[in-house]
């Protein structure tokens, strides 16, 4: 097991290196200039822009810049943002908690919706409940988050005026009112992300359960005279969840990606909105930092999915 882990981690290194090369080249080839705003301001002489370009090493050839970035990165130095001149790791760490709260609660919501709905739908296939659940699930994952997000804002903030649509990470106050404020502002972004995830997950849970429910051991359990409830919860769901668990792990990076748009719409100060503003400002070190974090997440969660799968299903062995 530990040997397998070690091997996987070693394989991950060249992939990360490859990812960083691709990212860096694309960013270097993309047009744009972090000091664009200086260029159109008549009060700032061009020499200042030149001096800054030289100071931040922007005029060096791409490969020089890449190796400088790589050697710094290997020593744990993520560089600093051209826009705010703050260290990139500091910027990212400052944003991570908010992203985790929003994404964590939306994943929780997705599971809370998907598990019961999927299982019930599978136990009564083609019933009215199943039909409705299916239809809603299809609608849910075919509507993009930027659309549902705007729709919710229009309905709940503008027409009904119930919920705020600007997310503030540091709401003043304490105790219950503080918690209520937090919940109120998180409802919409969490709903948007959670329901989108929940919709597709419902389909997975349903099909996984359907696969298991037809197996012989379930029939055996039933013929033993066990109550239906016990059969479903103890015998069916346990086994049907194995593929679902790995799926959740595999989807995590995608959730982070989907959160970028949602964060922008609701002004959630997470790493997604950091990425967007960095892209708009051509702030290369920050873009590199954030996308690199995403890359690490993808590789990490892939590994977690594989390990989890083996742990849950003893039929699988690592070699």
């Amino acid at each position, binding site marked *: 097991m530990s040997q397998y882990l070690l091997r996987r981690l070693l394989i991950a290194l060249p992939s990360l290196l490859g990812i960083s090369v691709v990212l860096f080249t694309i960013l270097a080839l993309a047009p*744009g200039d972090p000091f664009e705003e200086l260029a159109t301001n008549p*009060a700032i002489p061009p*020499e*200042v822009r*030149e001096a800054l370009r030289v100071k931040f090493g922007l005029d060096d050839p791409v490969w020089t810049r890449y190796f400088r970035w790589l050697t710094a990165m290997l020593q744990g130095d993520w560089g600093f943002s051209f826009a705010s001149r703050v260290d990139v790791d500091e910027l990212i760490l400052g944003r991570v908690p908010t992203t985790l709260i929003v994404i964590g609660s939306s994943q929780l919501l997705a599971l809370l919706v998907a598990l019961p709905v999927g299982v019930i739908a599978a136990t009564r296939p083609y019933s009215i409940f199943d039909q409705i659940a299916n239809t809603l699930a299809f609608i849910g994952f075919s509507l993009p988050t930027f659309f549902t997000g705007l729709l919710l804002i229009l309905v709940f903030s503008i027409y009904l005026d119930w919920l705020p649509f600007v997310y503030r990470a540091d709401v003043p106050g304490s105790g219950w009112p503080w918690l209520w404020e937090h919940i109120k502002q998180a409802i919409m972004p969490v709903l948007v992300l959670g329901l989108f995830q929940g919709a597709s997950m419902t389909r997975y849970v349903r099909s996984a359960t359907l696969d298991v429910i037809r197996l012989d051991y379930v029939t055996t359990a039933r013929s033993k005279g066990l109550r239906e409830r016990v059969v479903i919860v103890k015998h069916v769901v346990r086994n049907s969840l194995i593929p679902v668990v790995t799926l959740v792990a595999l989807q995590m990076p995608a959730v982070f990606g989907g959160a970028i748009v949602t964060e922008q719409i609701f*002004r959630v100060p997470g790493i997604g909105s950091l990425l967007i503003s960095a892209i708009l400002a051509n702030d290369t070190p920050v873009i590199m930092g954030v996308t690199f974090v995403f890359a690490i997440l993808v590789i990490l969660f892939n590994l977690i999915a594989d390990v989890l799968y083996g742990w849950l299903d003893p039929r699988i062995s690592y070699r």
Partner: protein
Amino acid sequence: MDHRELKNLIARVKDGAMSRRAFVRRVAAVGLTAPMATQILALGGVSAQAQTKFAYKPTKRGGGGALKVLWWQGATLLNPHFAVGTKDQEGSRIFYEPMAGWDAEGNLVPMLAAEIPNVENGTLAKDGKSVVWKLKKGVKWHDGKPVTADDLIFNWEYARDPATASVTIASYKDVKVEKVDDLSVRVMFEKPTPFWADAFVGTRGMLIPKHLFAEYKGDKSRDAPNNLKPVGTGPYKFVDFKPGDMVRGELNPDYHMPNRPYFDTIEMKGGGDAISAARAVIQTGEYDYAWNMQVEDEILLRLEKGGKGKAIITPGANIEHIQLNSTDPWTEVDGERSSAKTKHPLLSDPAVRQALALLVDRKSVQDHIYGRTGIATANFLNNPPRFTSKNTKFEFNVEKANQVLEAAGWKKGSDGVRAKDGKKLKLVYQTSINQPRQKNQAIVKQAAQKAGIEIELKSVTASVFFSSDVANPDTYTKFYCDIQMYTTTMTQPDPELFMNQFTSWEVATKENKWQGRNITRWKSDEYDKAFQAAQGELDPVKRAALFIKMNDLVVNNQVVIPVVYRPRVAAASLKLQAPLSGWDNDFWSLRDWYREA
């Protein structure tokens, strides 16, 4: 100036359309002295108190609750000397103050200064070569240390050091600053300088404390912990900062103005987009104020109906204009196109330029595209009013354009496109990708077609168009195109810096990496001479006349075709009282902001 004109002017002062000061300047131009002008005003029924001054009503400090403002691009750093864009300047302006700021009419208002320097009491030298700035007594930094002349000297040294790489360097590098006494300094210029209010004033004049930044001058400037934790003199003290997201401040109990500030806390939230920011202020009232509403006027008007807020339009002089290339963009000379050594094959004919100017339907552009956010104009230099030319006017007339072209020998071919000496009248018209601009392009193209000019439209992504990337052929500074359109900004109420973009020494070339500011590459001795004269002209009236002459040269020779000038647009709650200015940051007078009950 005849009797009727004078009466009109007085009426404008009466209903607030014109300031007293502007009136005095205007009549001074015809030889009346200032006391005389004031008397005329008094006779006309405008009392001395009628100055359009902002009335600050709160009678005690604090008690206003939280002021919540929305910046759809969040502040990324809080050191005014590194403030790349206005978002960073605004974030810094909550905590830092300059010696003086600019009000809406382009007049100086003291902030940290005890008074505005003037010739009468000798603080402004008669020869225009030095100015004395006096600090107000008893002003303290937020950490309790007093503000002294040493701080002023330090800011000068800090900003002018090339190693610091400050964006304010231009205001400080060519002046010398010496200490007069503990509270005053003398700023000395090499040449007589009519525009002396640059260093220590407005957006680039915010002062940082010497005792916290002294160790971080030059190369080490990035390491200063206070780059992110400002300690200034402003009405609000620093609480918390998350780059790109949130700036928070709280009332400064020792602020140097009585009864100010009104709000207990301030929160500047960043991120999102302009339209939803407008919604949060105008429609739902979740926020009190939002900056830079780059939203179509149509949408603003719709939101304003029955909403909780309004759009505030502040006059400025940013100008959306069409530039006509004076050089040939299609021939390469010494490795560059649009080389200053060439002449444009079509646009060098004045008739073509005149026709083009007649074909831009500015009225329609204003009515159908920009509304209140872009005002049709004939002038390149539109504000402050004392610099506005009255000699120009614009006209949209396809018929006349046809006549002008016909008379100059441009004959229509079978395809409806005019030609002369085998050269077809075909132009490429580029601009950045931005919906109003594409609509504007279409309007011009349509009219030009009727006059036999074929225009090919080209739009470039803004991040490419406005970049200084030397390798990219599509930047506006390279101008590898016949005509192009964008907005150029005027950041100071004095037009000297603004008008240098037509001087011959500013021509953008390969040699200066296309960093010269004269993009049209037009050259005129007459213009150069007028500009140089204005640089040293100390008489404000004569100086204004020179700038008006420069504007007329540019407009009458169709070097550019001004389209609309763009006032600044902000959104504010109906109750919020906030004096804004087109010549300074939105927060220039944050100390005076309050909410009406």
